[in-house]
């Protein structure tokens, strides 16, 4: 122990004299190791850490799959009666729950905020082992078939809407126009399973039976809904495949019986697929997380290579000290211990820095990545993170020490001491120098190309125009209230509201549509080429009025839009988007084509083709527009620089119909930006990674080349002593450096091709390289190479040869 204490004191004394070296290593490795710890944490959660629910490996979502002629058409949808049939079917789940995700107004609050409501059966809380802050969850009497109006609050809702009131249990609240009693508040550390979407967190849980579907909707076998879900814990001994088969057969039989004779369902069947909670929650995040982990790991490799060069240079500087130790009897083991103690101290400092960086990264993720990273609430600095830092720091310390000792020619150390300091410098083999340079260039090139490629993709998504105008537009979505309105009443209300708004001085135009231009919801319908025929088109449909396309600036590619009369009369006409038009008639125009939509026996004629729209996170779809909006949704164009005031809209609505409430009033640009949030985050992360990669690559290339030239100082001094001119020396150094640089580029090209061949599918989905990422990478690396050669060379060539021969002076 006293020997270790001595080594430690010596290491600290030595490092105190090299603050630049310590700072560079700590900063370089602290940053990259910290980022790696953060990525490790995310990947550990997604890949390794079990979900925080009892028997989590047996928790599944019974996912509905709609097939058309045996081919999957839609996934993640159920009809209401199908859901109830599965829920009531025995033998599959030992405990199950049905969920309905929706929104409602907290009308007992003066601000009437709109909250996320989940209508759930009591099984949900059993399945997730929900811990409580106050009160209880739903009991058996508040389950399916019961209408006891109880409410369970999330911790966040209790804190924000109810001021963390400890006496909230038993309080009566109004949601929409119904009254509920708060029976419980969930604990802060309850991790709600994000089965619907990452962005959604439930504010209030209400009993399943009180969901807002009327009798007709509860018996409707034709309309599929993605907001209802069946989850459960598989019964003992039941496998997912067995559960899927047990649920599918009776369900499909019942579905086929209920939809028999309905033309569009002639070829439709349904299946039930079992999706584990883990899969449902993580989705495709695993792929992205793994890629980010790989990216950061590659950065750490570069950083470690850079730091290795620093350690090698430090070893060369310590040659005299090592020589003295060898002369006094130190063997390789002693020297290794000396170096390892020093590298361990440096890595300890880097590890502390990495821990700080990791904590910062976790904090940033919590602040900016809510709704984008699954299980984010479970992410933080824990024993796993600290353990990872310790292990990584120790491994790196060993690697650096081993690398340093390998560079020392133990046999020549004593002889070096006897040279009397008259210029017997350390000559490092050309092969070692070349390997160092080539490897550094190869890693830097691959990393820069990949980062530039990812950045290009992210920026391309951000720069891609939506296809419609986003400026000076508002989406106004209204709630018709408890009474509900008939289609004719809705038409009248839309006309009245439209007239009121058009009279405002700040409004330039108003249009009505089933869903606004930024809506990502799907109204899945089918278009048939012929009645009863087999050729069909899956479409996402929307009902719009005559002003819609013009108002949102969505240009017609062919034909025309609906007239006001056609819109009022809901004429059998359709406008299709370019994607659907191409499917209808790949070789010509779709204008004039007659098709059969949904259950209608009357044909619909195509009168116009509108340009495609591009929404982030939404894959290209075949879109169909019908005349005559059916919902209380409007798009309002304001005059440039003007805004819509919510209070003024509320006052106007009160005049038209006091039951109407605002579900949503938001600028289209704001909504569109929020859709871009994931891409913005990805672009920001890849941008940061690219900058970091550039920095590390530049430092690394500079480090290895300048170190390589410094190692040749004595040799270059000899050449100058026997008459080599400065120009000859420069030519020699550049030629010798550029050869391994070229090798490095060659290796990176081969590595890139192999990587692409090995992972083509994954890479194609996230990366489309093009020419400029590789070109820019080569240019930037070459600039770093030229600078890295020139700066140390200039220092050598500006001195008289005697200094290089003696190893005098600081380079």
């Amino acid at each position: 122990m006293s020997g270790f204490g001595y080594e430690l004191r010596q290491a600290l004394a030595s490092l105190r004299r090299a603050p630049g070296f310590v700072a560079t290593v700590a900063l370089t490795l602290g940053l990259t190791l910290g980022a790696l710890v953060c990525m490790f944490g995310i990947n550990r959660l997604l890949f390794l850490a079990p979900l925080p629910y009892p028997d989590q490996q047996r928790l599944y979502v019974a996912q509905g799959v709609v097939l058309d002629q045996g081919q999957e058409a839609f996934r993640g949808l159920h009809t209401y009666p199908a859901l109830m049939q599965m829920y009531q079917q025995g033998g599959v789940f030992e405990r199950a729950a049905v969920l309905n995700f929706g929104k409602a107004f907290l009308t007992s609050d003066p601000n009437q905020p709109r909250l996320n409501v989940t209508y759930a059966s009591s099984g949900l809380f059993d399945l997730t082992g929900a811990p409580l802050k106050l009160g209880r969850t739903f009991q058996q009497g508040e389950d399916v078939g019961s209408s006891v109006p109880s409410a369970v609050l999330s911790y966040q809702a209790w804190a924000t809407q109810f001021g963390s009131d400890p006496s909230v249990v038993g309080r009566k609240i109004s949601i929409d126009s119904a009254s509920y009693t708060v029976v419980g508040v969930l604990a802060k550390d309850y991790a709600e399973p994000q089965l619907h979407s990452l962005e959604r967190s439930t504010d209030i849980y209400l009993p399943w039976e009180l969901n807002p579907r009327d009798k007709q909707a509860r018996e409707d076998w034709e309309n599929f809904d993605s907001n209802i879900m069946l989850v459960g814990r598989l019964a003992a001994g039941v496998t997912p495949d067995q559960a899927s088969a047990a649920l599918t057969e009776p369900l499909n039989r019942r579905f086929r019986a209920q939809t028999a004779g309905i033309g569009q369902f002639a070829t439709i069947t349904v299946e039930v697929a079992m999706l584990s909670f883990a899969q449902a929650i993580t989705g495709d995040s695993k792929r992205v997380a793994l890629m980010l982990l790989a990216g950061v790991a590659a950065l750490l490799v570069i950083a470690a290579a850079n730091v290795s060069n620093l350690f090698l240079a430090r070893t060369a500087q310590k040659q005299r000290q090592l020589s003295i130790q060898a002369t006094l009897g130190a063997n390789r083991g002693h020297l290794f211990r000396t170096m390892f103690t020093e590298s361990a101290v440096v890595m300890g400092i880097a590890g502390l820095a990495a821990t700080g960086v990791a904590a910062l990264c976790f904090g940033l993720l919590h602040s900016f990545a809510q709704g984008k990273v699954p299980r984010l609430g479970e992410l933080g600095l824990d024993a796993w993170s600290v353990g990872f830092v310790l292990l990584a720091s120790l491994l790196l310390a060993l690697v650096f020490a081993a690398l340093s000792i390998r560079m020392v020619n133990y046999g020549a150390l004593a002889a070096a001491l006897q040279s009397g300091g008259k210029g017997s410098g350390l000559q490092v083999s050309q092969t070692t120098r070349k390997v160092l340079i080539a490897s550094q260039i190869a890693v830097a090139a691959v990393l820069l190309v990949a980062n530039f490629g990812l950045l290009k993709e992210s920026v391309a998504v951000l720069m891609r125009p939506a296809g419609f105008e986003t400026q000076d537009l508002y989406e106004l979505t209204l709630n018709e209230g408890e009474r509900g309105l008939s289609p004719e009443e809705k038409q009248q209300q839309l006309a009245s509201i439209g007239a009121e708004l058009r009279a405002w001085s700040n409004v330039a135009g108003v249009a009505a549509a089933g869903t606004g231009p930024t809506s990502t919801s799907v109204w899945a319908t089918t278009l048939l080429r012929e009645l009863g025929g087999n050729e069909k088109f899956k479409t996402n449909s929307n009902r719009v009025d005559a002003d819609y396309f013009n108002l949102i600036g969505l240009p017609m590619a062919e034909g025309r839009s609906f007239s006001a009369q056609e819109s009022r009369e809901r004429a059998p006409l359709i406008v299709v988007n370019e994607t659907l038009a191409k499917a209808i008639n790949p070789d010509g125009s779709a204008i004039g084509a007659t098709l059969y939509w949904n259950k209608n026996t009357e044909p619909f004629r195509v009168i116009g083709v509108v340009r495609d729209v591009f929404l982030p996170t939404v894959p290209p779809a075949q879109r169909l527009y019908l005349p005559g909006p059916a919902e209380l949704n409007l798009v309002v164009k304001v005059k440039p620089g003007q805004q819509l005031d919510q209070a003024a809209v509320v006052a106007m609505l009160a005049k038209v119909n006091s039951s109407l409430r605002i579900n949503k009033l938001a600028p289209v640009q704001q909504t569109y930006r929020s859709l871009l949030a994931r891409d913005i985050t990805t672009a920001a992360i890849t941008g940061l990674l690219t900058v970091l990669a550039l920095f590390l690559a530049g430092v690394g290339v500079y480090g290895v080349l300048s170190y390589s030239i410094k190692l040749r100082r004595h040799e270059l001094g000899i050449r100058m002593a026997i008459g080599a001119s400065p120009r000859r020396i420069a030519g020699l150094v550049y030629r010798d450096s550029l050869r391994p640089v070229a090798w490095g580029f060659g290796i990176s090209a081969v590595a890139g091709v192999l990587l692409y061949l090995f992972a083509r599918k994954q890479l194609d989905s996230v990366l489309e390289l093009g020419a400029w990422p590789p070109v820019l990478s080569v240019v930037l690396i070459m600039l770093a190479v030229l600078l890295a050669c020139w700066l140390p060379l200039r220092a050598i060539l500006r001195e008289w040869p005697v200094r290089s021969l003696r190893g005098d002076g600081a380079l």
Partner: protein
Amino acid sequence: MKDIKIQMKGITKQFSTDAMDTHALRGVDLTIRSGDYVSISGPSGCGKSTLLSLLGLLDSPTSGQYFIEGKDVARLSLAEAAAIRNEKIGFVFQSFNLIDELSVFDNIALPLRYRSKGMDEAEITARVNHCLDKVEMAHRAQHRPTQLSGGQQQRVAIARALVGTPAILLVDEPTGNLDSTNGDIVMEMLAQLNREGTTLCMVTHDSRYANMASTRLQLRDGVMLDTAQREAA
């Protein structure tokens, strides 16, 4: 009267650091004529190696004049000094200073490849082989320096210094890293070269070898002692 190869007048060399100034050479005068064999000796730290570095244009004097074959070389640029070193001076170092990654042949040929007027390969080969024969190292032409003994390495270094037919051969402690047997061999080789007409200037601390020279100079504290001072010392 033999031609003057080297002439130094009032040469000083001063090294300055933050802490102090060191006067390594103070007003040194030196004349070496064609065919001379000059030894410069003195105690450790007297400035011998500094003087030899200045003579070999490996460093520049702080003040004074320096002529090589009548050409003033005291204030040359680094590139000009390199050209003079290549054409006029052959340097033999105490630690040989051969390049490990080149063969013996290539080490010797290196000065010829740095000639400003290029030489063809046939001529380079001929001159290198001639020098290899002179130092009796022809049989090791393709070996690497690390495969040679100290004495053999020093002979190769001598060959490299000779290959350019320099005006003067500067030799810095040629036996410093050799045993006495090899040292004697090297010194005899240098003596033979001088007998054949090569002008030599050698720095040594070994009085036995110093006395082999025809002109023996002594340095003390950066000052060249005159004959009387030497005898008194």
